[in-house]
């Protein structure tokens, strides 16, 4: 919660400073002098794509150049991230990152031709925690009721979710392990189809990212039971966090954290320029208003924080990766 009010306070600050800041940074360095390409390793229309297109819509004001989104989907992001790692390190090719997906790929497929330290992480902009969600009229009134029902190995409950080997699945399996649940995770090709299956009554409960379930939650068709993040989320203040509700540490290992990175070797001043510009962008009122409307939770993390988060995520995923096999 604290971070959000801080962000809110920062908006007013940034509004004051942004105009002057852009000019002074431009004076120090000429970068960028031409449009910047942003590789999105997923198809158009997905969560990463929408975030990047929203950023690109506002980027001109802060970068002084257009940001061109280029989708390079395939193999769960592997192709796009490999391309980013191998692209020219001049700062004109950046790419969307998504934790823990890139960490999971590396953990599940060690032969993947990119390494997590092939990148310099510029910043993170969006967080999207995993939730357990049921239909509004479900017999599970609370997450505790579900956990009580799901602890019986004789009567395994199906839970739908994006998969296989996704952040959602990892989050659910981590929670199931911590709480001693016996559930059957049924993989769907994305959170959208999992929500459809839930609405259609194929399953009683689903694990999805918050963003993909929120329209149906707001419409009163679905109900969130619990959110797997350290803080409660602003859009669903009444939904408890897992660790608080169950009174034990459940890692928010599946929370999607989306940001930007460049290949290793990009000059420091270009990285600093990009970091500064995206900081201003993610503080700007217009961007925040549109992001809020789309259900995108903005949480800015700078380069150092983003770098540290990758290491932390790698450690967490490594400890839990056997669950996905």
């Amino acid at each position, binding site marked *: 919660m604290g971070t959000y009010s801080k962000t809110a306070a920062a908006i007013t600050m940034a509004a004051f400073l942004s105009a002057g800041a852009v000019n002074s940074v431009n004076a120090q360095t000429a970068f960028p002098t031409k449009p910047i390409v942003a590789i999105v390793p997923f198809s*158009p229309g997905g969560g990463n794509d929408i975030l990047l297109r929203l950023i690109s819509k506002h980027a001109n004001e802060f970068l002084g150049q257009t940001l061109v989104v280029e989708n390079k989907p395939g*193999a769960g992001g592997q192709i796009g991230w490999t391309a980013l790692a191998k692209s020219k390190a001049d700062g004109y090719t950046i790419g969307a990152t998504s934790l823990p997906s890139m960490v999971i790929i590396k953990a599940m497929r060690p032969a993947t031709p990119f390494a997590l330290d092939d990148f310099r992480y510029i910043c993170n902009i969006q967080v999207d925690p995993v939730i357990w969600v049921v239909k509004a009229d479900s017999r599970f009134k609370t997450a505790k009721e579900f956990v009580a029902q799901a602890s019986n190995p004789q009567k395994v409950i199906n839970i739908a979710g994006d998969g296989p*080997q996704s952040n959602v699945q990892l989050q659910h399996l981590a929670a199931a392990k911590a709480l001693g649940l016996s559930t059957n995770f049924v993989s769907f090709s994305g959170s*959208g189809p999992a929500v459809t*299956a839930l609405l259609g*009554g194929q399953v009683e409960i689903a694990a999805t990212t918050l963003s993909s379930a929120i329209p149906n939650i707001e419409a009163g068709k679905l109900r969130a039971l619990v959110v797997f993040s350290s803080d409660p989320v602003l859009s669903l203040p009444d939904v408890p966090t897992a660790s608080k509700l169950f009174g034990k540490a459940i890692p928010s290992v599946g929370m999607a954290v989306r940001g930007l990175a460049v290949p290793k070797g990009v000059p420091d001043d270009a990285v600093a320029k990009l970091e500064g510009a995206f900081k201003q962008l993610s503080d700007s009122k217009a961007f925040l208003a549109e992001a809020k409307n789309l259900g995108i939770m903005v949480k800015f993390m700078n380069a150092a924080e983003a770098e540290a988060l990758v290491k932390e995520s790698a450690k967490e995923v490594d400890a839990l990766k056997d669950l996905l096999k």
Partner: protein
Amino acid sequence: MESILNGIALGSTQLLDPMVLLLIVLGTVFGIIIGSLPGLTSTMGVALLVPVTFGMTPVQGLALLGAIYCSSTYAGAISAILINIPGTPANCSTLLDGFPMTKLGQGGLAIALATAASAIGGFMSNFGLLFLAPPLAELALRFGSQEYFLLALFGVSVIASLSEGNMLKGFTSGTLGLFLAIVGMHPMTGDIRFTFGIPELFNGLPLVVALIGLYSIPEVIANLSEKSTNEETTAAEVKGVFGQMMEVFKYKMVMFKATVIGLIVGIVPGAGSSIAGFIAYDNAKKASKQPESFGKGNPAGVVASETANNAVVGGSLIPTLTLGIPGNAVSAVLLGGLMIHGLKPGPGLFAENGEIIYGFILSMFVANLVFVPVGLFVSRYGVKFIKTPASILGPLVIGLGVVGAYALNMSLVDVWIMIAMGMLGFVMKQFDVPREPMVLGLVLGTMAEGELARSMSLVQGDVPALFASMFTRPLSLIIIGLTAISVFQGLRSQFRKKGPFLD
């Protein structure tokens, strides 16, 4: 009902903006070019122009994107009919009778019929979107994994009908398609199969890339190797087409059924417009009094598949708008476009942004009208295009194929996959093995495998329970019934001919 009429009133005021009308025309022209050029698909056309819409109002932007979707789906028929290469995957079934018509010198008529049928299919399904969206969305929710699986099986039954005349070759082609569908990640376990370590294949053989290769390359090689056959095909002329378009009303029943098929396939997420075309084609063939004339230039085949694939447009937007879940790749891109304009697809969309959404739906009615004159105008020159010597046309088509295969995912590996599939397609063409069963196998195999695995997981491996639910869920029963009828009709026509089942 009242809220819909209110919505229409609100939406139509949006359409009075001359800019919107101008954008519909521009989108239509762009869509027709993208659609009629083999290799460039509807998805690509819409994705390319999403950033262009940033500066527009939501209705303007959506009208532009909607016009591209409608017109490119139609325009793929032009190249399917004239040069035997589907412009977009949706038009695979159109070439079955469209190209033979061109060879018979009726290319102009085929295009006129395709244009009229597309417009009518698009119009009708847009009515469905406008008035029946909530009940159809309910229907979409009733489709569970097992229904998807059964639907895929129903689609496979069409292979038999496409293979008539040479069952062995048709089934070989279909089986090969089903096998190729196995390539990539297992949908439930994530195990990676038959990819040779190529990451581009992890998500399966890229369908559109495969289709570009399968159709473009063999056609070009065949044209170049035969000595000046295109003298015969130049008889096609697009003249007096407005009169010829009226002939479409001879096929009222065909169009009606194709519209229903297109709408339903459209609302089923993931099924895609190529399947709708094939199922409608098969349906028209089985209902016809002269099924043997299909594949030899029967206009009903063109009408059925073009009505159906344009009827998919409205259908695919129903789950996209009402549930926030796209019905296919194009509507996924459109969904992204909606969100960038600050609209939140989902149950609240019609209530919160009724003005914009009704404006968008109404704009697609206009788009379906506009592509008729624009399409016929383009076809006029398209016919001249096929008169260009094979030595010029061939490299052009290959060039477009390479660009198209690359541009889909910005991947050079995809170009190699396209060429490899082209080689396979050429061998198939040389041995007279039909390629359409393979396309169906490829599309449906992925769906059938994934959905069966998911159905099994949902019953936790209890096979008797799965069978029981297949025969107790009404929707499952209906699909099983339709499949049984389709197989029975196929067998009956085989026996009538008294030919051996496998000749």
